[in-house]
Each structure stands twice: as structure tokens, then as C-alpha cells.
């Protein structure tokens, strides 16, 4: 019944007792003979260690890219957004507000920050700068949200369309698929607060630029339309560029810079 490794002992020692003298023996050998023969390093041994190291480096990179760098970029964009917000608050808009009409800020230059996006659904501390154009390196990869410069500005008649990363580089639109109907999307510019209400998601091919039209997918009614919309685009599925996820929202209201919307008042104040 006993395995081949079992050796009967007159002292009936347990396995741990047997291991002890072995360990002591090894220690004595190490202390006693300084010229203990070192195991020869084999090419395969070194190769194995190099490969294991490379594997660990790749895993570290993924952890850095997917988690650590996102957090770092987000804290940077949050600081930028806070500064922008405070800047807007300090310099009240010069343009007089036409009754009941949102004041629209002029289009921004490429990569120039012109506003701040607040979406409470994405977290209580969520705020991210809006910049002109959808430049990959100058805007999107910095974790900012880029404005399609062919579309309208916030509050204007038509479509205010923006793009942002869903994974990596701060991933400002990481939770775009978690938006609920009725969620508020706040945009702040030097001219005030624009409140949009999330309406629906759509999944389209990367070539479907019709979502950027004044009335998305309906160019023939654009002339008579009085809609003010927001369109947010990102990649779909996550980590892939096979499709685009599109989030549409409709304009709800406009307030001057001094009147911070109550829902995000704490977020705006927080540094």
C-alpha cells in the first residue's frame, strides 16, 4: 500500500522531522565550504529567464495602460477642467443673452480647449475638457473630448458632435453604454451652461458620418428643424474599432455662467 518514496524509519519520524536535518545539512554546507560548486548557467536557463522577464514586462505594460495611466490622465484632465471652469466663472460673458435663447460661443481652433463636459452618470467627480477638432494626438489621446469642427457649437441649432476614447488614454467615454434615458449632460463654455438630456444609443459603421448631420440621418428636414442636439461618438465594441457607439441627447436649457446647475454644483466646486 505504501508508495515507493516511503522509507520505514526506526524512529518513526514524521515528514517534517525528516526535512529538518536536511535543511540543517544544507545550511552547514553553505557556511562551511565557500567554494561550493555553482550550478553552470545554461543558455536555456538564461533564455528562459529573459522570456519570463519579457512576459512580466508585457503584463506590467498592460496594467499600466489599462489602469494606472487612465487614472493619471483622468486626474490631469480633471484639473484642466476645473481650471477652465474657474476661468469661465471669473470672466462673465460679454454677449447679452437674448430672451430665452442660448448664447452660442464661437467655434474653437484645433486642439484649443473651449468648454467642460459634465456627465453625472459617469461619476460624481466626472469633468473633462472639450477641445476643438478631433485630432488624435493633440486632443483625444490627451484624454480630452474633441468637437467635430464640421458640426455646430453647444446650444446652437443643429448638432453639437464630440468624440472621446472609450478605453485607454483617460477613457472619458468609458461608461457611454451605461447612460440612461433622461440622464443629464452638461456643457460649460465661456457663454454659459448648456443642459442636454440623453435620449438614445445607436451602433453604426465607422463610415456612417450621417450621425453628425444637423438632424442625424435626416438631411432633408435640417432646414426646417428647430432641434438642438448633442452627439457623442466612441469606439465599439470596447478595445475595437469595428463599429462606433453613438449617444444622442436633446437640448434642455441654457443658463448663464453664474448659475451653476444644481445637479453638478458640488462637482463644479470640487478641485
Amino acid at each position, binding site marked *: 500500500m505504501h508508495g515507493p518514496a516511503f522509507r520505514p524509519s526506526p524512529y518513526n519520524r514524521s515528514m517534517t522531522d525528516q526535512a529538518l536535518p536536511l535543511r540543517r545539512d544544507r545550511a552547514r554546507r553553505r557556511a562551511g565550504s565557500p567554494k561550493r560548486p*555553482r550550478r553552470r*548557467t545554461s543558455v536555456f536557463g538564461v533564455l528562459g529567464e529573459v522570456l519570463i522577464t519579457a512576459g512580466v514586462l508585457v503584463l506590467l*505594460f498592460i496594467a*499600466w495602460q489599462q489602469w494606472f*495611466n487612465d487614472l493619471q490622465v483622468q486626474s490631469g484632465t480633471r484639473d484642466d477642467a476645473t481650471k477652465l471652469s474657474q476661468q469661465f466663472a471669473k470672466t462673465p460673458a460679454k454677449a447679452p443673452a437674448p430672451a430665452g435663447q442660448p448664447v452660442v460661443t464661437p467655434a474653437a481652433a484645433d486642439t484649443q480647449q473651449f468648454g467642460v463636459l459634465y456627465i453625472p452618470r459617469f461619476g460624481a467627480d466626472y469633468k473633462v475638457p472639450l477641445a476643438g477638432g478631433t485630432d488624435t494626438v493633440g486632443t483625444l489621446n490627451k484624454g480630452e473630448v474633441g468637437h467635430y469642427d464640421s458640426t455646430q457649437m453647444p446650444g446652437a441649432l443643429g448638432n453639437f458632435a464630440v*468624440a*472621446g476614447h472609450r478605453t485607454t488614454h483617460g477613457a472619458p467615454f468609458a461608461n457611454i453604454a451605461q447612460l440612461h434615458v433622461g440622464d443629464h449632460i452638461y456643457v460649460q463654455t465661456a457663454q454659459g451652461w448648456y443642459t442636454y438630456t440623453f435620449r438614445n444609443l445607436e451602433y453604426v459603421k465607422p463610415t456612417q458620418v450621417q450621425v453628425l448631420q444637423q438632424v442625424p440621418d435626416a438631411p432633408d428636414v435640417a432646414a426646417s428643424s428647430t432641434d438642438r442636439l448633442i452627439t457623442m461618438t466612441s*469606439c465599439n465594441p470596447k478595445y*475595437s474599432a469595428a463599429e*462606433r457607439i453613438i449617444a444622442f441627447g436633446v437640448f434642455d436649457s441654457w443658463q448663464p455662467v453664474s448659475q451653476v446647475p444644481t445637479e453638478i454644483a458640488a462637482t463644479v466646486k470640487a478641485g
Partner: protein
Amino acid sequence: MYSALWHVLPGPWWLRVVILLVLAAAVLFCLVTWVFPLVDSFIQPPNVTVGSH
């Protein structure tokens, strides 16, 4: 490779462990500060805009 490193290090085993930990921290710092951002700049993130390829 690593056994050679262990033998090169001076002092008792605990000192070697401390030195190795410090070395590992230094390597990690260099990776996060310079190497990873450099590598990342060569990786094309998934496109998020419509109409551009």
C-alpha cells in the same frame, strides 16, 4: 541571470533582498515614467470618430 545577480550582491540575505527591492522599484519607476509612455505612443488606439477610416 538572476542567480548571478544574487551572487554578485554583497551582504547577508536580507540585505540582498532589500537591494533587490530597491532595484525593482527603480526599474518600475523608469518603466512607468519613460518606457511605457514611449511604447504607448507607437500603439494606435481604436478610432473613436466616424468618417475617418
